[in-house]
């Protein structure tokens, strides 16, 4: 081992540090905690941008025959909004949480491959920047801006050179592909870290659920993301080399792309929701003051979800005219996934049952998540009923379904996680007062917007239309939907204000403000670069419980 001279880093809060040094420190860091924070904050930045894009769409759709933006712009906003939210918000924020927490929870000093981790982060960031560069320079460096307008699943042959001239589609391919390389690296890192770097005593069945879920998620990213990369490479070949993978003129098949995309796309939505489940699984026990109910079956259900999710993709294709045998099979597999998911819901309920639930901000968000996610999952089951899906597919009902899972499931847990671990990462508590404003206003706005959307769908409104005519029964509903967004924006603003003001003059946090049980609460807030002075040893799933209750530790019972 070599010790480089001058390698003693200054503490991050040294007032003398110039901006340049500060930048240099963050640009060169390989520390999992710094990278985690960078992931989360750039993800949130993208969230605000994509949220603004959504707001513009909602202004356009507030009234019939509105002309706030034209069709081209709307289609670009729609595509970029969806793509950003999935690839540049959901994935990086959860990678951030994983980055920050996995080593702390398993009692390690860093991820298995710290430099690969940095590489992955920068790939994600530059991929996102390249993607957004399309708003400025689409057709060649000096061309007019052309963001992609093919929808987030970019169905062929709409992406074929004949129908998508210029470079807009290429930006979609490249931005996601580059970020995808990074994600694959990060997932590999998570798996290797969890398998190889757990502290002594932490057997598989003693890992915190968060870590288990990130492990499953890592595997899912490894097997599901590369198919998208492969399909995108094919599309690139089609567009740049003149090959014919998806060229319907040369006998290529449009449906092949759909299979390839959804082979990735469906696991992708579970890649997004499993880390959200992971956060809920940490917060629920701590604030209910009970261990997680049915740990083993929670693990089994997660692994089950992971496996089943690889075999349900064609439920996004019920309307393309597959044979009835295929449709039946995918209806069955899709419905089957309701079972392990239900197990999780009920086990969280079981954890809360008989507890003394402290409704701090994290727990409030998780509770709201339970409500919204049950609704979301049940609309998912309706979509899985193939004949019903023939009516609902590609309507606003689907839009409502997936915003309920993506916001009610994903975003709520992101918020929960931020309220929960913010003290650990920054040493400051988030204000509870602003937290409440954020919570109630956002939850109200969310339900107003997306609860309403189900009805447009049932009344026959297709998605991805830039405008609609009056008198079709959608006018009032669309107006209400758009009004809801005002509240969501306000809610987000309260949140931003909460973060900024708490950082500036918030209350200091102890090492263990929530009376938690996992290893991250045993180190300082924020933790030192090396996390732990000595690597801890654990004997149960709740090492801190053992220390706090020496008279009755968990390992007597596990």
């Amino acid at each position, binding site marked *: 081992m070599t010790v480089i001279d001058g390698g003693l880093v200054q503490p991050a809060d040294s007032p003398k540090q110039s901006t340049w040094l500060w930048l240099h420190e963050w640009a060169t860091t390989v520390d999992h905690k710094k990278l985690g924070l960078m992931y989360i904050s750039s993800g949130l930045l993208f969230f605000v941008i994509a949220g603004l894009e959504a707001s513009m769409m909602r202004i356009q759709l507030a009234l019939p025959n509105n002309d706030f933006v034209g069709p081209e712009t709307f289609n670009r906003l729609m595509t970029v909004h969806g793509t950003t939210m999935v690839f540049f918000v959901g994935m990086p924020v959860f990678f951030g949480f994983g980055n920050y927490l996995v080593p702390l929870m398993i009692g390690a000093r860093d991820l298995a491959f710290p430099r690969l981790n940095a590489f992955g982060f920068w790939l994600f960031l530059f991929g996102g920047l390249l993607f957004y560069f399309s708003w400025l320079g689409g057709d060649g460096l000096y061309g007019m801006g052309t963001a992609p307008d093919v929808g987030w699943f970019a169905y062929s042959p709409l992406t074929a050179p004949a129908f998508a001239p210029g470079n807009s589609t290429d930006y979609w391919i490249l931005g996601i592909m580059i970020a995808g390389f990074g994600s694959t690296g990060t997932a590999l890192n998570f798996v290797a870290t969890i398998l190889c770097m757990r502290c002594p005593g932490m057997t598989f069945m003693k890992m915190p659920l968060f870590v288990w879920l990130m492990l499953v998620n890592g595997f899912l990213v490894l097997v599901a993301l590369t198919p998208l990369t492969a399909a995108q490479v094919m599309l690139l070949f089609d567009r740049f080399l003149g090959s014919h*993978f998806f060229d319907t003129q040369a006998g290529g098949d449009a449906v092949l792309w759909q299979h390839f995309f959804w082979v990735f796309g469906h696991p992708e939505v579970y890649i997004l929701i499993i880390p959200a489940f992971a956060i809920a699984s940490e917060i629920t026990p701590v604030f209910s003051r009970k261990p997680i109910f049915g740990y083993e079956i929670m693990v089994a259900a997660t692994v089950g979800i992971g496996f089943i999710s690889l075999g349900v993709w064609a439920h996004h294709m019920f309307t393309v005219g597959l044979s009835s045998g295929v449709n039946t099979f995918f209806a069955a597999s899709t419905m089957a996934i309701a079972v392990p998911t239900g197990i999780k819901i009920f086990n969280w309920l079981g954890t809360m049952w008989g507890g003394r639930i402290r409704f701090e901000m994290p727990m409030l968000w998780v509770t709201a998540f339970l409500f919204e996610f049950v609704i979301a999952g049940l609309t998912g089951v309706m979509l899985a009923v193939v004949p019903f899906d023939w009516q609902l597919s590609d309507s606003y009902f689907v839009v409502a379904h997936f915003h309920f899972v993506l916001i009610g499931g994903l975003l709520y847990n992101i918020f929960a996680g931020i309220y929960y671990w913010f003290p650990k990462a920054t040493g400051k508590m988030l204000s509870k007062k602003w937290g409440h404003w954020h919570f109630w206003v956002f939850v109200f706005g969310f339900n107003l917007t997306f609860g309403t959307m189900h009805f447009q769908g049932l009344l026959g409104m297709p998605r991805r239309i830039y405008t609609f005519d009056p008198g079709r029964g959608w006018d009032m509903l669309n107006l209400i939907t758009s009004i809801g967004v005002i509240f969501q924006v306000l809610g987000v603003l309260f949140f931003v204000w909460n973060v900024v003001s708490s950082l500036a003059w918030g209350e200091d946090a102890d090492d263990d403000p929530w009376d938690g049980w996992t290893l991250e609460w045993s180190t300082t807030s924020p933790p030192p670069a090396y996390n732990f002075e000595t690597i801890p040893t654990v004997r149960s799933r709740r090492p801190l419980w053992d220390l706090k209750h020496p008279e009755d530790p968990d390992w007597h019972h596990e």
Partner: protein
Amino acid sequence: MSTANETITADEWTLPSRGHVGMLCLILTECAFFAIFIVAHLFYLGKSLVGPYAADVLELPVVGTIFLLSSSITITLAIRALRQGHQAAFNALWLTTIIFGLIFLIGTGFEWYGLIYDQGLTIRTNLLGTTFYSLVGFHAAHVTIGLLMLTGVLIFSFAGLIHVGEAERVDVLSWYWHFVDAVWVVVLTVIYLIV
């Protein structure tokens, strides 16, 4: 801060090596990558609207296959030699592996030359060209990357930097090479044997 513990001490605590786990993960995602190209190839079998067709132009690359598969054996022997401290044997076997891989690549080069200039099959010609060149091309690209890394190790070894202590890290690399070989078996089957 450590929980007082009688049963587990850090010494008894052994976990898999992260190099090998990382490599396995890489192999897993690469499998998914190749699987998609293989599915595309199988899906488009016989669907080309214009010729040339596979049965008419593709010939089983016997020589290249033999060399590539043999290289898996030589690399295993090389690692064993390294573990036993036979530095010279390691260098020789490692070099052989690289040469075998090169021969395979050269074979592919000749095959492509023939296809393009004699048979008129390019990636733009038809669906066969599209899937054939992508699949074989990606495999060849993996062989190339593998060869670059093998060569790197060889240079280090000549520089005297590779010893018994490095055997595990070199072993990780050899897993990649085995994977590339295994993929070839599958590619060979779907492209040349199923027509």
